[in-house]
C-alpha cells in the first residue's frame, strides 16, 4: 500500500525507526528539564563560591530537611496539573486538616492514625476530582470552595484552636527522625516520587492522565475514562498532600487548620519551576523534584546571606514568573 503514499525523502538518514530511543536522546528532548537542572547547577556553584557555610554537610542536610514537606505536596500538585485540572487551591488546608486528623487519631495507634489521615486527604481530594471530572466544574473555584468547607468544619470541631500531640507520646517520632543524617521524610519522598513516576509512565491510568492533560475534548471523544482518571489523580494528590501535613505535624508536634497556608503556593511553584505545563499534558515527577530542590536551595542561599523571609518569598515568586514566561513562549512556537 505504500506504493501510492509519497513522502519527501529526507536528505539526512533518520535514526533507525524501531530502535528504542536512548536515554541520552530523551534527556536532550526534555529541554525544560535541562534548563531547570542547569539552573540548579548554577545555584549550587554560585552558593559554593560566594556564600560561606553553603558547601557544608550540615547545610546540605538543612536543604534536604526543608524539601520533604513541600516535596510531597508538589508531587500532588504535579499529578493534578498533568491531568489538565490546573491546580488545587486547598492544598495547604487539606494538609493541615489531615495533620489534625492524624494527631487526633494517634490514641488508636500510629498505623491507624496514618491510614485515617490518608483516607481523609484522599477522599476530600477525590470528591473535588469527581466534581471537576464529571461535571466539568472549574478546578480553581471548586478547590477554593472545598478549602473553605474544610476550614469551616475544622473550626466548628476545634473551635479554631490547634491540636497537639501529647508530650508523652513517642510512637510517631520515627517520622521526624534522621537516618545517616538525612530525615526519614526525605527517604519517603524519594520512594513516593519513584512510585508515582512509575504510575504515571508505566500504567494505563498514567497514559490517560497525559492524554487528558493534552486535550480534554480529544480524550473525551476517544472514550477514555475521563472521570475515573481525574478522580484517581486527585485521590493520589490528596494522599500525598495529607502526608505533607503528617510530616509537618510529626516534626513540630502540633497542627492548626490555617497553619500551612503557604504550602499551596510552594507546591504549585515547585511543579511550575520543574517545567510542568500549567495547562497539563507535559511534565514529570523527576522534573518537579528538581523544581523543589531549586526553590529550597534558593531559599537556603538567601537565608545564609542574611535576607529576610520576605525576600525569600519574593525570590520564589520571581522564579515562578520567570519560568511561566519562558515556558509559555516555547509552547506557542510549537
Amino acid at each position, binding site marked *: 500500500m505504500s506504493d*501510492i503514499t509519497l513522502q*519527501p525523502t529526507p536528505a539526512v538518514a533518520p535514526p533507525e525507526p524501531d530502535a528504542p530511543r536512548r536515554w541520552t536522546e530523551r534527556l536532550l528532548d526534555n529541554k525544560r528539564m535541562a534548563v531547570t537542572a542547569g539552573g540548579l547547577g548554577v545555584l549550587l556553584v554560585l552558593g559554593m563560591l560566594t556564600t560561606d557555610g553553603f558547601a557544608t554537610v550540615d547545610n546540605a542536610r538543612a536543604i534536604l530537611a526543608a524539601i520533604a514537606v513541600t516535596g510531597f505536596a508538589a508531587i500532588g500538585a504535579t499529578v493534578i496539573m498533568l491531568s489538565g485540572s490546573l491546580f488545587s487551591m486547598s492544598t495547604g488546608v487539606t494538609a493541615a486538616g489531615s495533620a489534625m486528623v492524624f494527631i487526633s487519631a494517634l490514641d488508636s495507634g500510629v498505623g491507624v492514625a496514618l491510614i485515617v489521615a490518608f483516607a481523609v486527604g484522599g477522599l476530600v481530594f477525590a470528591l473535588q476530582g469527581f466534581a471537576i471530572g464529571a461535571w466539568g466544574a472549574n478546578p480553581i473555584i471548586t478547590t477554593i470552595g472545598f478549602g473553605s468547607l474544610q476550614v469551616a468544619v475544622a473550626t466548628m470541631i476545634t473551635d479554631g484552636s490547634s491540636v497537639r500531640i501529647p508530650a508523652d507520646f513517642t510512637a510517631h517520632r520515627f517520622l521526624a527522625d534522621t537516618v545517616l543524617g538525612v530525615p526519614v521524610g526525605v527517604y519517603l519522598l524519594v520512594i513516593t516520587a519513584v512510585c508515582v513516576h512509575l504510575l504515571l509512565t508505566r500504567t494505563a491510568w498514567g497514559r490517560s492522565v497525559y492524554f487528558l492533560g493534552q486535550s480534554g475534548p480529544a480524550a473525551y*471523544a476517544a472514550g477514555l475514562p475521563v472521570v475515573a482518571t481525574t478522580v484517581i489523580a486527585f485521590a493520589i494528590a490528596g494522599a500525598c498532600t495529607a502526608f505533607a501535613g503528617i510530616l509537618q505535624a510529626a516534626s513540630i508536634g502540633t497542627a492548626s487548620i490555617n497553619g500551612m497556608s503557604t504550602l499551596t503556593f510552594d507546591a504549585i511553584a515547585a511543579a511550575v519551576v520543574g517545567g510542568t505545563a500549567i495547562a497539563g499534558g507535559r511534565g514529570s515527577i523527576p522534573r518537579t523534584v528538581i523544581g523543589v530542590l531549586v526553590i529550597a536551595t534558593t531559599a537556603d542561599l538567601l537565608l545564609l546571606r542574611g535576607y529576610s523571609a520576605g525576600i525569600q518569598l519574593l525570590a520564589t515568586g520571581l522564579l515562578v514568573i520567570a519560568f511561566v514566561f519562558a515556558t509559555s513562549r516555547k509552547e506557542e512556537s510549537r
Partner: protein
Amino acid sequence: MSTDQALQGPFRPASADQGGSDRAPLVRATGLTRTYGAVQALRGVSVSIAPGEIVGICGQNGAGKSTFVKLLTGLERPDAGELEVHGETVQFASTLDGQRAGIAIVDQELALVPQLSLEENIYLGHRDVPLIGGAKARRARCNEILEQLGLGHLDASTPLRNLRIGERQLVEIGRVLARDAQLLILDEPTATLSNAEIARVFAAVRQMRAQGRTVLYVSHRLGEVLDLCDRVVVFGDGLIRGAHDVTQLDRERLVQLILGEAGVVESSATRSNSQRDQGTLELDVRGLEIPGRLRPFDLSATSGQIIGLAGQVGSGADDVVRALGGLVPEARGTVGIAGRSPLGSPARARNAGIRFVPGDRRGEGLFLADSVRRNITATSLKVLSRFGVLSGRRQRQLSDERAALVGVPRTKMNAAVGDLSGGNQQKVLIGRSLDESTPRVLLLDEPTRGVDVAGRADIHRLLKDAAARGCIVVFASTEIDELFDLADTIVTMAAGGKVGAHAHSEVTADEVLHEMANAGARGASHV
C-alpha cells in the same frame, strides 16, 4: 544536519525558476528551503506570481504547499533562499511584516473568536484599527464585505457563535478582504462550505482578481482549482513539479502531476461487493433526535455496508454521526448495536462497538504533542496493559501493525503526530479505530477533509477493507465524489432531516445534489 541542506538553496540557481510568469512579478521566490527536524519540507522552490492572477497550489500532503505558504506569510522563516515583493527583497520576522507587505491568509483551521461580533472578528488583528474613532467607516466597510459574501442578511454586531461553520468560513474570508491585501492566500477555503457558499467565495475571488489583486488558492479539490484558477503550480517532494495554465490541463493530467511517477491510483470503481462476508452485526437506529437540530432519523445497516450521509453544512448529517458517537448528550431515540445503545457518552458508544473518527481531528481527535505510536494505540490501553501496567513491547507491536495497515511510514512512529501531514494524521486516527478483529461500527465525519488525492484513495480503500471484514461504516460527507466513491447507500439530508435513501447503483450525482440543495434552500429560511 542543516549545513548540508542550507547549502542547497544557493546551489539551485535562479534559472530553476520552475513556476515562471511573463508579467512583472508581485512576489518572486528564489531557492526557498525549509527543514523541520529530519524532514526537508522545501528543497529550493523558485516561483514568480504576477499581479491579478489566481494561482492554484496543488500537491499531496507533505509536498511542501503549507510550508511555502507559511514562508510567504511570515509565519516561518526560510533556512535559505530569497523572497521578493514588488521587486524588493523582504525578510519577514512575523506575520505582521507579511501583512504590511500586503499578504494575507485564510487558514484552513478557523481562527475566529466565537464570543466577538462579526465586525470585531473581521477587524481582529487589523493593523489599521485605531484605539478610538473610525467606527462608522468600519461598520460601513464591514456591511459591504458581508454583502459581497452573501451574508448581507446578518447584522454586523451578531456574535460569531450564532453562525454555522460554513458561514464562519465566509467571515474568515471577509476578514482578509478587510485587510486590502495585494496577495491573498486561501488555504482549503471550501472544505466546510455548501455549494451555494462556495459559489459566493468564487465570486468574491474573481472580483478581487478584477481589482488587480492576486489570489493563491490552495486546495485538494481539483475541480474547483480547474474551475477558478488561471494557473496551477504543483508541489511534490518539496519541489515544484510544474506550473501550467489551466487551459493546458484537465483533471487527469493534474492528478498525474500531483502524484508524480508513482501516480497510479487504484481505480475506485472496482467495487467488490461479492467478496464481502455477510456478517452478523446490525445497526438499528429508530427516531434518533436532537432537539432543535435533528428531526427523528431512522437507519438500519448490517455488516459490510457503507452508508454515506450526504448533506451540506447544517443539514444534520454530521449531527447523526456525532450523536451515534455518543458526543451529543441531549440526543434521544432508540439505537441498538447487538442490543447495546451508544447514546450518552463516547465511552458508552465505545462499549457498544462504535469507533468514531471526528471531523475536527486536531481539536477532538489527536493528542498533537504525543508520538504516532502513542496516538495510534491511545484507545487500546486495555489491550496494551495487564493489571493496568503498560507493556512497551506490546505497544511497539500493536502500533507497528496498525501503522503498516493504514500506511503511515515507519520513520514517523516516534514523531509528534501534530507534525504530520493531514493525510497521515487521518490515517493515524483511522488506525486507532481499527482496533480489534471483531466487527465494529465505524463512524466518520468528513473522512478525507484536508487530505490529498493519494491519501484519499488510501483512506477510501481502508474503509472498504474494513467493511469487507464485517464492519459497518457510516460517514457524513459534503463531497459528492466521495459519496459515490465510497458508499453503497447514500442517504441525503437537509435542514436537520432525512430527504431520501438510495442504493449507490440507483441514483445519479445530479439527483443527490438536487435533494441536498432543494431542502437546503428550504433550510436557509430558518436561519
